[in-house]
């Protein structure tokens, strides 16, 4: 259902700081808007983003309605070993997406 994009280098040297970019397709409804009839529109946002490096949490973001639709997050981590980077987005109304990327560290 949900569409996410991640940009992680495929290879890195041990100790390198790698740049990671993520983008999740989500409208991030703020909960502060109203319909043209005045009825409030319920909040529906991604609240948490987590990045795990071989199962260990290396980055986490708490998001609020002030984050734009289709949240983009760029951060970095140190390439320590070959393995899997796991990305998790969680939000209102049971929104959950998980994506993984392989990295080879020489």
């Amino acid at each position, binding site marked *: 259902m949900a569409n996410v994009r991640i940009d992680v280098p495929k290879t890195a040297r041990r100790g390198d*700081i*790698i740049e990671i970019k993520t983008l999740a397709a989500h409208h991030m409804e*703020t909960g*502060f*808007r*109203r*319909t*043209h*009839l*005045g009825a409030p529109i319920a909040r529906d946002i991604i609240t948490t983003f987590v990045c795990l*490096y071989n199962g*260990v949490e*290396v*980055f*986490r*973001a*708490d*998001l*609020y*309605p*002030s*984050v*734009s*639709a289709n*949240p*983009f*997050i*760029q*951060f*970095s*981590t*140190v390439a*320590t070993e070959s393995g899997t980077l796991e990305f998790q987005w969680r939000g209102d109304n049971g929104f959950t997406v998980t994506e993984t990327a392989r990295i080879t560290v020489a």
Partner: protein
Amino acid sequence: MMRSRKRRTFLALAGVATTAALSSAARAQVTRTPLNNMPDVIRKLVGDKPINPGKVKLDLPPLVENGHLVPLTVSVDSPMTADAHVIAIHIFTERNPQPEMATFRLGPRAGRAQVATRVRLADTQNVVAIAQLSDGTFWSDRTHLIVTLAACLEELPA
């Protein structure tokens, strides 16, 4: 005599009318989204510790045409070692309906304390970044930006 009095009255009325028009125009210009409870929220986060200026660099464009998508980069001057690193970077806004924008939790494994995202801004206002360091100190930066098209204003109730 009669004629001159009329002229006086006209001038006086015209003066009143102009003043009224100008003041209402001035008022229209300064009508702003009200301030939210950002200071309380920041106080709750840092407790009674001081917030030092410096170390943090909050990058936002000074003039924003579209408040729906504003690129934001925040970086902290930190060696990011196990002994001295950034634990969290908190971003706050002064005039959005909710003061919290985002919180990024880092650690020594981040390598570099720099994060970028995109945010919404409801009005011309200040944005504040507060970095929480592993030694328990708080550092901050503040950026003022002008927003011409605000987020959240396109759907006023009919």
